């Protein structure tokens, strides 16, 4: 029954399914199992068809793919237009997608095109009676809301790093999408890739952030730790307001929300707006000179000390452990 199916939108990243895409597929599989339906994967972009085996191994019963050149670069009008047609035809109960920057661009457009309810930045999803229920932070994470999506398809955009890929294989049928790709009116004129080795803050597994305690724009001790852990560097609002880091690095209610496996807060006191941006991190470490800093009450591990001594020593200790 299609109305119990769940469809995952899987984006491609350098010729492979993106990590957020496999997380979405894992969440889709779990929700589909709860509903008693099948798991579909829609994968769009360069070499999308080549991802079929990997998607089948991660839970997809049916893989719908399109390698139409009009899908690259990813423009919301083109992707939303094609996906709306694919979703209308497949008729699933729910659609899930990683809440990446592309998805943020796409979500509203797709929801309006399908006249379907959407929930963004979900940290949990479930089936509850006739409704799909999404748990998502609101007011900068000061409250968690359970949102009931009453109409089908329910569009669920998942916070990166929260859901896990499925270990269950699916049936793995493959079908090429035949719908035409609409021509987007907005077009990319130029694109500057992120420097090699730099990880997008909102998708990083490890985030090392600095605050007022950095005392200036030199974040090199944090950058070295982040590089050692293949992570990204973030900043508190006060560090950004001081002009020490760009706005794009800000973690908090008026900046980015991150959910890494490891969050290291250095010289950050822990204002409520900052905590809002990192509260769903799995493990939080705080390094601060002030033993009374509120950040310690939100940390799994606290170190009272001078970050300019402790952080380089930590980088060295981790390097040694790795041998």
């Amino acid at each position, binding site marked *: 029954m299609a109305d119990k199916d769940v469809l995952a939108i899987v984006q491609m*990243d350098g010729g492979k399914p*993106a990590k957020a895409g496999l997380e979405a597929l894992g969440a889709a599989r779990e929700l589909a199992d709860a509903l008693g339906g099948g798991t579909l994967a829609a994968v769009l972009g360069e070499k999308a068809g080549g991802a079929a085996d990997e998607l089948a191994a991660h839970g997809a019963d049916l893989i719908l793919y399109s390698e139409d050149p009009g899908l690259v670069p*990813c423009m*919301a009008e083109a992707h939303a237009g094609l996906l709306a047609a694919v979703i209308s035809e497949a008729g699933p109960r729910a659609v899930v997608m990683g809440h*990446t*920057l*592309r998805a*943020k*661009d796409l*979500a*509203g457009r797709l*929801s*309006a095109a399908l006249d379907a*309810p*959407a*929930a963004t930045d979900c940290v949990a999803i479930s089936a509850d009676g006739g*409704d799909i229920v999404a748990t998502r932070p*609101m*007011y*900068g994470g*000061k*409250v*968690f*809301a*359970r949102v009931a*999506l*009453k*109409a089908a398809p329910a569009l669920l955009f998942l916070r990166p790093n929260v859901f896990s890929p499925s270990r269950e294989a699916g049936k793995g049928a493959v079908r090429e999408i035949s719908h035409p790709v609409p021509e987007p*009116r*907005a*077009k*990319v004129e*130029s*694109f*500057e*890739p*992120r420097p090699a080795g730099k990880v*997008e803050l909102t998708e990083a597994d490890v985030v090392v952030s600095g605050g007022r305690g950095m005392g200036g724009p030199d974040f090199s001790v944090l950058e070295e730790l982040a590089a050692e852990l293949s992570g990204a560097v973030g900043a508190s609002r006060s560090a950004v307001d001081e002009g020490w880091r*760009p*706005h794009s690095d800000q973690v908090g209610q*008026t*900046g980015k929300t991150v959910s890494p496996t*490891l969050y290291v807060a250095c010289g950050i006191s822990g204002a*409520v*707006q900052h905590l809002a941006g990192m509260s769903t991190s*799995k*493990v*939080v470490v*705080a390094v601060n000179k002030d033993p009374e800093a509120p950040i*310690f*009450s939100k940390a*799994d*591990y*606290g*170190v009272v000390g*001078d970050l300019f001594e402790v952080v380089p*020593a*930590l980088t060295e*200790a*981790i390097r040694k452990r790795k041998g």
Partner: protein
Amino acid sequence: MDIIVLIKQVPDTGAAVSIAADGASIAAEGLKWVVNPYDEYAVEEALRINEAAGGGTVTVVSAGEARAAQAVRAALAMGADRGVLVNDPALSGADSLGVAKALAKAVSGMDFGLILAGSRAVDDEAGLVGPMVAQLLDIPHVSMATTVSLEGDSVLVEAATDGGTAVVRAPLPALVTAEKGLNEPRFASMMGIMKAKKKPLEEKDLSALGLSAEDVAAKSAVAAMSPPPARPPGKMISGDTPEQLAENLAAALADEAKVI
């Protein structure tokens, strides 16, 4: 150019938030209401575009209850020319899609070359309404702009996307959502606040827009709210030197937390 800016009134981000007795909304008492910070970037950008061009109008459009008129006035005090507030009891439980439908209808009769909106509001954090309005009006959009410039019949926008930063050109009319870093919004001057009191602010209900309550009926609703999950009490790392502290922390992260 005639520019429309979509704004929303939200609780100040410094405010403590408590859950109301119904368990599915926040308590309104004692909240300070402000213009959503991302929408302030949008208002500021609209003003700068017209100041640079030496002409044009800025119309601020919001959906909300009567108190949201203060937010519209605040935008008028910054320098916008006129305001429209869509205020209807049927919108009180509306979801993003319902609000977008009301806003799209409100602006569809106006002359505009560009619509600006915040990339998200700091209350529900959905980030949906701007692109929804673009879809409903069948115009292109660009999300999360960090620079905006007009060139002839198109708008050129720089925005972060997966993997890097893109410069996107969209033909006008278009909708652009504003990201932090786009600009530094001005404070309203005393003169601006005085002038704003005399600027036109029109309130409209849904029927004035030709919409019924059913047209904007919510397809999603908050069923319950809870405080964020509590983190178990943490552990302070001991050590007499930075090296010892670092070694003990690395050991805890590797052996206990198993995250490195």
